[in-house]
């Protein structure tokens, strides 16, 4: 009885080893972890990309949203999954600030960038029936009533928080930052008048701007941006000093654990390059106000490092960082 049991076990173990050695990646469904909640910008990008990647990989990607902790919950989940390439992280820029904000003790350096899909541009929006018609209007009002106006945010290290910090360092305005579960719920609160202003990715605001429900006061960029036939002035028009932080914006990408086997990485990079360059996906990215990129590997790592150094030091300079970027070897830009 016992010996037959042992034999079965041994056979099982052997066959398991044999299976891993011979099977070509991927031989089963992959799982994709989305850093932000359903309906947010990261979510839509991930769900639009996945079918193209599935076509290239020949296997399904089962997507789940794991929002929370400004992305730390998803990075923690993926870093603790096996490094076999079957668990993909569909994320945004946030983990690059996890160290300085002490949300996690690691950022994207522990992950391999399968593809940086594209970068976005942020706009500062207010409800369309609000009294402010330019960023300067809002900032002046906020200065008159310090700590009265409310800014929608997505938690420390989120896009609204970073843009708010940059604005604060330039203008010294004071607003209350109310955290929501993502850009979507934040925009909902803005539409309901529960917050007064919110910096968001263009994608999350475009349809509402088009419908005339919100107005964009400024684009966080050096040049004006045209949305739905309206020209949105650059932030530097009212505050030229803001220029030192530009260009800056959120980005989206796909990562796996860095210690994933190289051949698996290669398969993933190939598949996601095909997916990210699919015309349908490129159209969707552009429609949502993003600049398609589709870079990976060394090039992507350089992009990530540069972004991290600029942003981490901004937060450090305005006193929003909880730990100095120095501590983690993040160089000054």
């Amino acid at each position, binding site marked *: 009885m016992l010996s037959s049991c042992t034999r079965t076990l041994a056979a099982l173990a052997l066959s398991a080893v044999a299976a891993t050695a011979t099977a070509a990646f991927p031989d089963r469904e992959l799982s994709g972890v989305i850093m932000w909640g359903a309906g947010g910008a990261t979510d839509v990008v991930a769900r639009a990309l996945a079918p193209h990647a599935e076509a290239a990989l020949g296997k399904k990607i089962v997507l789940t949203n794991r929002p929370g902790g400004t992305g730390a919950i998803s990075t923690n989940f993926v870093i603790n999954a096996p490094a076999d390439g079957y668990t993909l992280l569909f994320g945004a820029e946030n983990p690059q600030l996890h160290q300085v904000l002490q949300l996690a003790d690691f950022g994207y350096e522990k992950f391999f960038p399968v593809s940086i899909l594209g970068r976005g541009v942020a706009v500062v929006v207010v409800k369309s029936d609000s009294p402010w018609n330019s960023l300067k209007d809002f900032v002046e009002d906020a200065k008159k009533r310090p700590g009265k106006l409310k800014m929608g945010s997505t938690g420390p290290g989120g896009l609204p928080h970073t843009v708010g910090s940059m604005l604060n360092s330039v203008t010294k305005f004071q607003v209350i930052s109310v*955290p929501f579960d993502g850009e979507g719920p934040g925009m909902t609160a803005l539409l309901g008048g529960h917050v007064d202003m919110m910096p968001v990715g263009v994608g999350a605001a475009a349809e509402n701007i088009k419908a005339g429900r919100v107005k964009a006061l400024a684009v966080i960029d050096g040049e004006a941006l045209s949305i739905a036939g309206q020209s949105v002035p650059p932030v530097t028009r009212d505050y030229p000093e803001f220029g030192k932080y530009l260009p800056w914006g959120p980005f989206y990408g796909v990562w796996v654990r860095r210690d994933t086997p190289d051949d698996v990485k290669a398969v993933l990079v190939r598949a996601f390059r095909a997916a990210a360059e699919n015309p349908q996906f490129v159209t969707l990215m552009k429609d949502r106000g993003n600049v398609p990129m589709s870079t990976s590997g060394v090039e992507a790592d350089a992009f990530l490092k540069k972004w991290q150094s600029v942003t981490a030091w901004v937060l450090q300079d305005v006193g929003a960082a909880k730990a100095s970027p120095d501590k983690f070897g993040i160089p000054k830009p």
Partner: protein
Amino acid sequence: MPEAVSYFFMSWANPYLLFLTAAGTFAGIYVGAIPGLSVTMAVSILISFTFKWHVNEALALIAGIYLGGVYGGARSAILLNIPGAPSAIATALDGYPLAKRGEAGTAIGLTTVMSVLGGFLGIAALAIGAPMLSDLALLFAPRDYLLLAIWGILLVGSLSGESLAKGVFAGALGVLIGMVGLDPMTAEGRFTYGSVQLSAGIPYVAAMIGFFGVAEVLVQLHQLGVTPIKQNVRKIVPAWGLVKKYLPLSARTSAIGVCIGALPGAGGDIAALMAYDHAKRTTKDPSRPFGEGAYEGIVAPETANNAAVPGAYIPMLTLGIPGDAVTAVIIGALYIHGMKPGPMLMIETPHLFWFCVGNLVLANIFLLPMGLSGIRIFAKIVETPKAILLPLILVLSAVGTYAIENNPVHVYWMLGFGLLGYFLKMYGFQVGPVILGIILGPLIDASYRRAMISVADTPLDFLAEFFTSPISAILVAALAFTVLSQSRAWSAFMGRLRGAPAH
């Protein structure tokens, strides 16, 4: 208008769309009935599947699955005391006692008819009042969500069983369980003790299956010798008189369902719990005491959760804002199919709205025969000898828990909660309040803190806003009325008014 009519009937006239809606509804019933398989999961899997289809075909299939799935959750709640989906938690409270009395067939028959009714009322609200309701939903501030959650937590009083103190303890325990993990607002750990498993939080489906399913299996072991109750399956379709009797109640609970469903921060699970609470508070003499198999206790949550489905479509179609997790996935699907969900959706693609309405009506019609067929076979599950049934329930619970996130740790959670639930039940604590706390705890936490942050941490301003904002003031008044009308002083007062002796 004739255009709207033609889009409304599009999926009725096209045989392929008709077939997809029917297939979706049928599949949905079983997805809903199996614990651990959720509609969200099914819909997100379908999205990559329907990627190359026309958008109408994908929407037809999804509408069927969504309505069928929300309805199907009641089935395992009634037959096994394991809610197939969180929106069926309230249904288990009276549905399972009904099955224990041999009325599983009647219970499923009644929930089917009432779900369909709730669905129709919800669709009517969607068709008539979508733009108005979605604008109303936007007005709900964080403090209003807090009030809703407090309203929901009052249900602890109804779920407590023999001792209110025990119910309150269980409810607070649930709230604490819901707090475990990284705080979504500051990313600080709460009760995580450096463990990554804990920092991801405790999945509430694992807790639900543990506290309901596993704990119930262990309690049942005390009655192994008892032969299962013979199920009465002669009368499946409820008599018209019974349906008519519950029409007023179901109209009110459907309204609760649509409104909660339309709120972007609350879905069918909360709608069903609040409807149950409403039924318990307003029903003067229920068919049986609540918790022991009252028909009202299954009618209310089942109408509400099906009415919440069209409710969730309201902000999705009018504003591009998801009403719950499933509509969030549908929004993703619309993007991928080249649509642009948002406030322009109804202006740029008005046909989509009427297509969705027509489709939901169709799926709801299919629900009736599909739900009513096969009940006889299902009711037999309860008649299976316990020695066979209990191990099977356990395996199903384990697979269902594992399936949520493919995580074996969740299965250990499930077992741990099952054992805890067993001892709680043996010592007269109810597990209902624990689940209530797990569901409402995070909503209370986030809404309270958002509301407090919005007034810069000044408690006086915080309190003042409950009376200065119209919606909050209405909610406060309704809440106060609910609490007061239950108190002895109130019934004494009303008694004096009527000239009858109060007790």
